Structures are given as structure tokens and as C-alpha cells.
């Protein structure tokens, strides 16, 4: 069995950034495994702009953004394999992949970075009520058909869910000649970024209905109509509020879920984000297995995916140099008031670096202060004029402050 220092699984915005950073930090024996036939992952189909504002201080399309990383991978001569699907992983970091050229290959890795992205919640997962006709499709799949294969999925479209991909697809399908009738969002606020509401809906006169969801899908073979109903504060359908839309396509943009089937093979605790439980090094509970990007928690901005992955890449390099002590005291991090999750879920004392906590709020809030507390001790306070669930929030804690902590740390937001 081939021994290798580091395997990076996935070559999207996270995988390539992680591999580049690991290489820059002295990891020379490494390999990227990509399941598709080209590097870049889902960015290949994201032909809209809005990428790179943080990373490159300019506005790029998805393919432009990923090309910068591809160029760097090639410049640094980082080896990669395409059409290579990882099919097994053990606690001892023995990894199996399958490919046309190599057959089944086993690798004994010293460190692994999982950067496998996310998948879309679909009709099954939301138990979409009504008929099982065609014409109901997730936004990302419709995007792939259109932007990669040149295939349009319909002419008259209703979109369920105001997540960013749904909004982007509302504009994209309109530009391609379809009539987008509306976007329906079950929550009383949008799940997408404000800039996308403006640029993808308002600019094209596409109505956004809040607190409304699909109560029935109707169609014998192909979708014929969609019924939308209003929902109450408990998200239950209110009778006699139906709106009927004749359409041939229902696009689902109802959330993304970390795509980490590999976690099923190893004894690695899974968090409420459906990604792995990690420490400040983006290291899972299995020392030497790291994870970053959308397979850890779903991001709204790709630049932050790359940033997080660089941390994982650098950490893997530290681990390979025995500079991470997994026997250190563990401090648990808990989400407090109004917070749905916080990452990392625990930190190792005596941190190499300052720590960035990432979290999301449960509902839109104004005039808030983010509190980082351990017991009664306030470790940090950050004022936030406005917080929305669709935007990930980041707050820092210096490694020196960490020394004052003995108990768990709670991150919460409170009224100012």
C-alpha cells in the first residue's frame, strides 16, 4: 500500500485552497482526489459573478475564481487525480478510491483533508406533497443542465426557497428565455443574500412571496401546476390561502447539506450542521483528519470557504510536523441565545493561533452585541448593527484570552 503524507478529497474552492496552503507550509508528499473530470467542483457551473471580493479584491465568475486556484495548483506542481471517487475510509486513515485508470487504490495517509462540498435538499427530504411528476428539480441540478450541458429544464417556472442558488437561477432562467412566475419562501424572511434579492429578483420584476410554501404539486407525467399556500408562525399551512400557478417546472432551492458520506465509515462525531465536529484547526475528533468548506458547514460566500480551507491546509502541515497536541485540554464551545450553531465545537488549549468563531443567528436581528463568555467572564464583545441567518458571522478570540478559560465557552447575541 502506498504511504502518503496528505490526501485532499475534493478539488473545489476548499480542496484546492487547502492543498495549496499545505504545500506552501512544506507538505510535499500530497495528492488531490477529484470525483469529476475537471478541477474546481461546483464552481464550474457557477458562471455568475460575485466571487473573489475578499480573496482577490475583484469580482469574478465561478470559473474565473477557480482558475486562479488551478493555476496555483499547477504552478506548485501539486499532484491530482480526476475521476477518482473515494469509496472507503478507515479510522487509521486508509483510504480507497476508484478510478477508470487505476482501478481500486488503497492509500495509507498520515493526514487527510475532507473537502467534499455539499448537496441539495431535495423533494424527498422536504416531503414535497402531491404527484411524482417530472419537472421538479433542484436548483443546482438545473444549473448544471443549463450551464454545463446547454439544456433548459422548462419554460414556465416557480421557485421554492429563496436560497442563493434559487435566486441566481431565477435570473439565469429568465435571461435564457423562461418565465419565472415567482419565488416562494416558507420563512418570513429570505434565505438568500440581500444583493441577490436585488440583482436577481427585483431587477427582473420577479415576485417574492414570504411565509408561503408549496402545498401541492400537480401533474400526471410532467408538472402541470403548483399550489402555494400561506403558512402560520409554526410553518403550518393555513387553509383557503391557495395560489395556483400553471407551470412546467418547480425549482427547489431549499437548503444545502454537507456531503460527507465518508463520515459514516469512521468514528467521527457529527454536529448539528451535519458536518464533522472540529477544533480550531478544522481537525475532526480523529487526529489527522481535517475538514473544511461546505462539507463542514454551508457557507454563503465562497471566499470564506477558501479561507477556512487554508486553515485546514496549514493545520495538516502542523500536524505532520507534530505541532498539534491532541492531548491538550479541550474546551467546549456552545451556541447560546439566538444562535443556531457555532464552529469550532471545541478548542484545544495553548492554541498556535488566535481563534475565529463562526456562527449563524436563528432569525433576523437588529442592534446586537455578540458575547463570548466563559461562565461569568466576558472574553469578548462585538457590536453588530444587523444580523441575518443567511450571513455567516465571524468573531475572533486571541490565543492569550484562551488562557483565562477553564470551563466551556458560550457564544451568544444579545440586545444592545
Amino acid at each position, binding site marked *: 500500500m502506498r504511504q502518503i503524507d496528505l490526501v485532499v478529497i475534493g478539488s473545489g474552492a476548499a480542496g484546492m485552497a487547502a492543498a495549496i496552503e499545505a504545500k506552501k507550509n512544506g507538505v510535499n508528499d500530497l495528492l488531490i482526489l477529484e470525483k469529476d473530470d475537471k478541477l474546481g467542483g461546483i464552481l464550474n457551473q457557477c458562471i455568475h459573478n460575485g466571487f473573489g471580493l475578499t480573496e482577490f479584491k475583484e469580482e469574478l465568475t465561478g470559473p474565473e475564481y477557480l482558475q486562479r486556484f488551478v493555476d496555483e495548483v499547477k504552478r506548485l506542481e501539486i499532484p491530482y487525480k480526476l475521476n477518482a*471517487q473515494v469509496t472507503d475510509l478507515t479510522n487509521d486513515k486508509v483510504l480507497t478510491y*476508484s478510478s477508470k485508470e487505476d482501478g481500486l487504490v488503497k492509500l495509507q495517509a498520515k493526514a487527510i483533508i475532507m473537502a467534499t462540498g455539499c448537496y441539495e435538499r431535495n423533494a*424527498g427530504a422536504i416531503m414535497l406533497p*402531491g404527484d411524482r*411528476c417530472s419537472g421538479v*428539480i433542484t436548483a443546482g*441540478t438545473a444549473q448544471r443542465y443549463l450551464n*454545463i450541458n446547454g439544456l433548459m429544464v422548462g419554460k414556465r417556472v416557480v421557485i421554492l426557497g429563496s436560497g442563493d442558488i434559487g435566486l441566481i437561477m431565477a435570473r439565469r432562467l429568465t435571461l435564457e428565455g423562461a418565465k419565472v412566475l415567482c419565488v416562494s419562501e416558507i420563512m418570513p424572511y429570505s434565505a438568500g443574500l440581500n444583493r441577490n434579492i436585488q440583482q436577481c429578483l427585483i431587477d427582473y420584476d420577479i415576485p417574492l412571496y414570504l411565509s408561503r410554501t408549496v402545498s401541492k404539486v400537480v401533474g400526471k407525467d410532467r408538472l402541470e401546476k403548483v399550489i402555494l399556500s400561506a403558512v402560520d408562525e409554526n410553518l403550518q399551512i393555513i387553509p383557503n390561502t391557495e395560489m395556483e400557478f400553471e407551470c412546467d417546472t418547480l425549482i427547489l432551492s431549499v437548503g444545502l*447539506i454537507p456531503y460527507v458520506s465518508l463520515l459514516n465509515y469512521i468514528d467521527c462525531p457529527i454536529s448539528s450542521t451535519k458536518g464533522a465536529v472540529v477544533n480550531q484547526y478544522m481537525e475532526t475528533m480523529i487526529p489527522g483528519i481535517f475538514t473544511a468548506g461546505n462539507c463542514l458547514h454551508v457557507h454563503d460566500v465562497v471566499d470564506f470557504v477558501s479561507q477556512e480551507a487554508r486553515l485546514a491546509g496549514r493545520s495538516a502541515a502542523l500536524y505532520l510536523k507534530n505541532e498539534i497536541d491532541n492531548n491538550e485540554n479541550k474546551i467546549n464551545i456552545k451556541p447560546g441565545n439566538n444562535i443556531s450553531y457555532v464552529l469550532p465545537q471545541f478548542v484545544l488549549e495553548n492554541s498556535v493561533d488566535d481563534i475565529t468563531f463562526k456562527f449563524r443567528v436563528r432569525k433576523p436581528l437588529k442592534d446586537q452585541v455578540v458575547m463570548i463568555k466563559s461562565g461569568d467572564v466576558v472574553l469578548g464583545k462585538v457590536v453588530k448593527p444587523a444580523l441575518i441567518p443567511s450571513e455567516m458571522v465571524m468573531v475572533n478570540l486571541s490565543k492569550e484570552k484562551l488562557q483565562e478559560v477553564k470551563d466551556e465557552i458560550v457564544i451568544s447575541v444579545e440586545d444592545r
Partner: protein
Amino acid sequence: MKQIHDVLIIGAGVTGTMIARELSKYKLDAVIIDKSNDAGNLTSSANSAIIHSGYDPEPGTNKAKFNVLGNKMYPQIVKDLDVEYIPCGSLTIALEEEQLEILKDLKERSRINGVEVKLLSKEEVLKLEPNINPEVKGALYAPTAGVIDPFNLVVHAMENAIDNGVAFLRNHEVKDIKKENDYFVVKTNKEDLYARVVINAAGVKADKIASMIEDIDWAITPRKGEYYLLDHYKEGLVNRTIFPLPSKKGKGILVSITSSGNYIVGPSSEFANPDDVSTDAPTLANIKASASLMVPSIPFKETIRVFSGLRATCTRHDFIVEPAKSERNFINVAGIESPGFVSAPAIAEYVVNELVKPVLKLEKNPNFNPKVKPYHRMHYLSEEQQNQAIKENSDFGEIVCNCEHISLGEIKEALARSCPPVSIKGVKRRTRAGFGRCQGGFCQPKILLLLAKHYGVSPTKIPLNEDGSYIIDHLIKEAK
């Protein structure tokens, strides 16, 4: 010149395809037609997929007879047809003290039916199935029950019948049937077909077909069953099929492993019209509540799909396996609801030996081969075998479905057989590509393009399921 077939079977579900396979043991001109574009597209692909032991049907009924006979045939059938089958056994559980009496009655019923069962104490039940409600009082254990891959059972029975000489006509919907001279004229939406013997295995529409020949004193009143299908996940849930006590409506809402290692929860049981396979939130909520009484920890967040199927419940409350009153050459095989899957091969033997033989001279087909050529299921092969397969055909190394790890080679293999898939769901049912947590989000475009290339048609022609359920509306660069 009109071609008069010896036998024409209407309906390519589990019953029809099993009869077709049984007929292919003889030198006959047999044809099987279905209104769908594939075998097993309706009831046979949306049910619990349980090979019942036979503890439940009333002694003396067709259900009891064929269930018990069929159950014994399965170990050989799954070998011959290369179908995934787990002989996991079933537990029928009592949650209240007074229900223990009913278990005893069921045990007696099993004895009369000739089914091996055992009463288990609370402790024994919880030892076998730790996730069952700890309030359980006891259970009836039926070790001969099992779970099967329902899709490939039907498709492989069809494939085997075709390989042995039966013709399969898809997209043929029967409009009318008339007797002319000594044969039937079966008018379809396509052409007229002619046959000396007609076998009606039309599932939820069997009463409609039977009425084309004579007035009947029975009817099919379809009952819809909605289900949850859960992902396979690390912790595991149950190792067997768990039933509540049976009621008038059927065997009740069960919790079971599937042959693919997923978990299935359902079905509901409500009368529905014969084309309605929709799902609705209130019914699913009821299923959830009922099932949670038996297994409180079912992780419904792992749901990857909800679906429904129709049972061909008959007003006679038993399987109808008999000739029409006025026509010995017209055989009704109707009302095949649960336990239909397990009974199908026994019904097929009975139909051919007892009902077809008296009206048609049957001569053995010397070339009959009971086996389908084994399929490559990479997932179940050892590493060595996988590497050998990839060495022989590198397509087996290229993974198309990332969730279930299904290779291009496996999909191409299904396409190369004599009952190939024509739709996305046809590929999914045969190979499991698209069966996982992303439900085809990643692999559907690849499979759709593969099908379009294989059949030499535009991507707009590839359906999700039935013809008409197109996925692609148009090509963006198509000339206007």
C-alpha cells in the same frame, strides 16, 4: 397476415412477469404487454418488498396457499434471477398485555398454514431488536420472512422470460378485447394483437380488463399506501421487519430494513383512485406517529424519499386466480395485493400447470435456462473481484453515482440486457444510481446524457419515468 400468439399476458408487474417466465419453460409464442414503458413500473415498484412468511392469511384462502408455497420457492428464485434478498425474518409485536392472546391466535393460524413461528418474550425481543419500544410485551417471530429488491425481481424475471423467448411490448395499453373464432383480439393504443389465451394480470385495472370479456361480480378498489424511505446510516435501526398486530386494513404500518440496507416505514392504507400515487403531509404524519409507537427512535431526519403505491385490493378479499366464467381461455389473476410478491412464483406455477395446460398443448422448451447472467454489483464484490472487473472493463472503475458508488459499467451492463431501462427511474431501480441521499442531484445529468447517447435520441426524449415525463424542455443552442 395476422400473428396469433399462443398466450398474451396483460400487465408486466411481478405477477405477469413471473407467469411469463413460467410460460417460457414451454415452446410457446407468448407475449407480455404493459401500458408503462417498463416492467414493474407501478404497484410492483412501490410496496414494502417483504417476502412474507405466511403467518397472517386466513387458512384455506388463495392468499394462504400461494404465500406459503411461494415463500419456499424464493431461495432458488433469487439465485436464478440474481436478486438481492435478505432472509431476515419478521417480528409481529404486542405492545399491550391483552395483545399477547392475539399473538397466540396468530401462532395457531401459522401452524394451520404450515409456517414456522415462535413466540418471544419481551426480553428476547429486545435482545434481537434493541430499538423496539421497551414497553413491548412479546412478539411472534417468523424466521422465514425476508426482504427483497422488488425492482430487479420483476426486471430480471422479465429479462429471463425474454431470454427464453417471450416478447415484451412496452407502452401498450389495452382498449378493448373481443373473441373472434378461437382467438382473442386485443385492441391496444398501438396495434391489435391476437392470442388464443389471454392472462389478465393488470393489477389495479384488472377489473376493467376482465369486464371486457363478461360481467364480473368483483371489483378492484385500490388502496394507497404511503411510505418513508430512510437513508442507510451508521448506527442502524432494526435488523428485521417489525409489524404491529394485523387489522382489517392489512398487516399495518411496518418498520423494516430493505434489501439495500435502507429503512422503510409505512404503508398507510386508504382507498384511492387507480392513478393516484401522490403523497400528503397528514397521512405521512400519521405513519410517523404509528411507527414511532413500535420503534421510538426512528430518525425521520434521514428521510431521503417519500412515495406511495397502490394495492390491487379486491372486493372478494382474496386472490382471484381462475378462468373467466364464460371463457376458459381467459384467465384472471386479480386482486394480487399483499402478500403478492411472495405469492407470485407460486401463482405463476398454478396458472401455467392448472389453467393454461388444460387449454393449450404445452411442450417443454429444451433450451430453457432458468438463470439470468449474473450482474456485477461492485458494492458487494471483494476488492480482488472489483479489481478483476475493472481490469476487464474499466467502466466498472468510473463511479457515476457518488452516493451509492454505482459505476458506469453497472449502468451500461443494465442497458446491454434484454429488458433494458429507458428512463432515469429505470436506471435507478436496476442499478441504484440516484437512489442515495442526493436523489440523483449529481448523477442525473450524466445518466440522462448516457441514455440519450445510448438510444441515439435528443436529451429532451429521455423521461424521468413514464413516456411524457420529460426532464429537458429544450436545447439552448437548438435552431429555432
